[in-house]
C-alpha cells in the first residue's frame, strides 16, 4: 500500500505518466483532523544519510472538506482508499473517525504516532494507556476495519500493540517515523521549521524490521495482520518485512525516489517466490527462523 502523508489525497501522483493505483492494494490518504490545519512552517524537509526528515504538521483541509469534496472524487473500485485519522484529543479522534464511518473508505487508520504535532500524535502513541483509549473511542465510532499506526519511539512496542488489540484494533501499521533533528551549522539552528521531525527512508529499515518482528510475536497468534513499513525501497526490503511477520507492506519515501517503484517491487516479490518455490506471500509470512541466543543488551 501507499502510505499516508506521501501521496496527498489520492490524485497527486496521477500527474506522473505511467503511474497507476492498480499497482497497489490500498492507498492511505493524508492525515485528517477535525478542523483544517495549516501545518508547520518551512523548512519541512531535510535529506539525511539514507533518510528523510520531515515535519509537515498534519496540513489538511479538515474532515468535512475531505468527506464532502475529496472522497467523492475517489473511485472505490479502483483501489482500497484508507482514511488516516489524527487528533489532539480523544474527542477529536472519535469525531473524525465517526465522520469517516459513513463514507466509501475501506478502512480507517488511527495515527497515534505523528511526531510533528505538539498535542496528540506520538504523545498518545508512546503511552500504552492513552493508545488503548484512542483505539477504544475510535472502535465505538465505526464498524469499518481499524488499523492502528504504532510509534517506534517507545520502549515496549509489543506491549502497546497488545493493548491496542485488546482495545479493538483490527490491524497494526508498524512503524511510523523515528523522531530526529538536523542542524544547520551556518546558522546553528535546526534545519526544520518545527525544530524536530520524523525520520523515514532506508535509514530506519532495520529498526522497522525489528519492531515488526516484535509486534508479530503478539499479533501473529491473535491473527491480527501487520502492515510493515519503514524504509522499504525494493522487493528485497518488502520480502524481509514479510518474513518478519508483515501481511502487507507500505511504501512511502521510496516513492519520492522513484514514483514508478511499485510495479518493480511487485515483480521482484513474484520473482523471489518463484525462485524459492513458495506458493504465496501468505506462505512466506512470519517464517523468520531466529537464532537460539541469550540476548544481552550490554554491548
Amino acid at each position, binding site marked *: 500500500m501507499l502510505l499516508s*502523508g*506521501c*501521496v*496527498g489525497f*489520492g*490524485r*497527486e*501522483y*496521477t*500527474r*506522473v*505518466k*505511467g*503511474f497507476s*493505483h492498480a499497482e497497489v492494494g490500498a492507498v492511505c490518504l*493524508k492525515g485528517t483532523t477535525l478542523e483544517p490545519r*495549516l*501545518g508547520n*512552517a*518551512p*523548512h*519541512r*524537509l*531535510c*535529506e539525511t544519510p*539514507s533518510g*528523510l526528515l*520531515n515535519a*509537515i504538521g498534519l*496540513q489538511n483541509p479538515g474532515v468535512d472538506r475531505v468527506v464532502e469534496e475529496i472522497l467523492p*472524487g*475517489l*473511485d472505490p473500485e*479502483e483501489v482500497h482508499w484508507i482514511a488516516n485519522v489524527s487528533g489532539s484529543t480523544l474527542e477529536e479522534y472519535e469525531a473524525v473517525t465517526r465522520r469517516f464511518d459513513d463514507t466509501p473508505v475501506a478502512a480507517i487508520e488511527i495515527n497515534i504516532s505523528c511526531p510533528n504535532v505538539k498535542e496528540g500524535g506520538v504523545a498518545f502513541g508512546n503511552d500504552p494507556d492513552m493508545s488503548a483509549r484512542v483505539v477504544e473511542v475510535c472502535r465505538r465510532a465505526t464498524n469499518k476495519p481499524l488499523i492502528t499506526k504504532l510509534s517506534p519511539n517507545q520502549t515496549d512496542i509489543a506491549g502497546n500493540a497488545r493493548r491496542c488489540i485488546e482495545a479493538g484494533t483490527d490491524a497494526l501499521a508498524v512503524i511510523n517515523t523515528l523522531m530526529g533533528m538536523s542542524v544547520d551549522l551556518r546558522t546553528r539552528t535546526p534545519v526544520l521549521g518545527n525544530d524536530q521531525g520524523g525520520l523515514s*527512508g*532506508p535509514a530506519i529499515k532495520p529498526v522497522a524490521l525489528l519492531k515488526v518482528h516484535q509486534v508479530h510475536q503478539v499479533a501473529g497468534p491473535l491473527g491480527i495482520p501487520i502492515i510493515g513499513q519503514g524504509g522499504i*525501497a525494493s522487493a528485497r526490503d518488502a520480502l524481509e518485512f514479510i518474513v518478519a511477520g508483515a501481511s502487507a507492506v507500505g511504501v512511502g*519515501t521510496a*516513492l*519520492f*525516489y*522513484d*514514483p*514508478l517503484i511499485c510495479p518493480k517491487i511487485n515483480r521482484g516479490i513474484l520473482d523471489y517466490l518463484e525462485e524459492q518455490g513458495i506458493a504465496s506471500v501468505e506462505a512466506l509470512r512470519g517464517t523468520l527462523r531466529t537464532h537460539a541466543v541469550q540476548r544481552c543488551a550490554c554491548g
Partner: protein
Amino acid sequence: MTRRETPSIVEQEAEILAHEAHPGEQYVLRLRAPDVASQARPGQFVHLRCGPCLPLRRPLSIQRTDPREGWIELLYKRVGAGTAALAEQPVGGRLPLLGPIGVPFRPDPRRPRVLLLGGGVGIPPMIFAAQWLRGRTPWKPLALLGSEVPFPFTPRPSRSSVSGLDGTRAAMPLLEDWGIPSRLASRAGLPGCHAGYVTELAERWIAARGHAEDTQILACGPHAMLKAVAALACRHGLPCQVSLEEFMACAVGGCAGCVVRVETPLGPAMQRVCVDGPVFDARAVFGPCA
C-alpha cells in the same frame, strides 16, 4: 473513475550531453530529455537524481530547451550534498529525471514590456522566459541579471541601447544573439556591470521611460531580492510573478513538504512550491501593496 490530474510529468533516464564547470562553483548541464524539451514552459523545473548515493531528487529550473534536438539545459550552483554529487556526474552518464513540473510564468499580453529580473541561480528561468518570448508577438522583454560571483558566461558589451541604462554596457551574449536586450549587475566589481542590484537597474529604466503601464515583471532569485522586486512592483503598480524554491521531496504534490505561506482570498494558506508554484503572484507571497 477517480478524479485525476493531467498526466504531464515524465519519468525518464536522461543522458548527460554536456556538463561544464564555471567560476563560482556554477555548472551548466545539458541533458537529453525530448519529452521535457517539447513540453516545458518557462518557470517549470525538473526533479533530478544527483547520484546513486543520494536517492532524493533535487529540483532544478530549466534554463533552455531545444525541442528539435531534444535537449534541455540547467544551471546550478554547488551548494550542498546534492549539487556536489551532481557536479561529479560525467558526460555520457544517465540521471533519473522527472519533468516538466510546476506552474509556469503566465505573462499578461496586455503588458508587452516584460522585465526579466534574475539573481544568481535564479537566472535560468529568466533565460528560458526570454527564449520563449523571443520573436513572439507582442512581447518586448528586457533581462536584468545579477550575480555575486562571475556569471557562467563571458559578458559582452551590448550593441543595443536601453532607456536609462546606457551607462551599464555588460550584457549576456546569448540574449544579445537572440535580439533581446540585457544588462548585468554585480556587487562583486565585475567589469562593465552595474555595481549594485538589478532592482536599481529596473528603477532607472522605469524612470527614464517615464511610464510603466505597459510593463510587468517576472523574477527569480534569492528571497531578499524577490522581496525587493515585489516592493518595486508595488511602487510602480506593476504585476509581478516570482518563482520560488524550497526543499522538495516528491515534487508532484503528494508530500506537502515544499510549502510557502501565501495570502489567498480565503485567508492564509500553505501552498506547495512544486505544483501550486513554483511561480506565484508576488503579492500572495510578500503581501498586498501598502
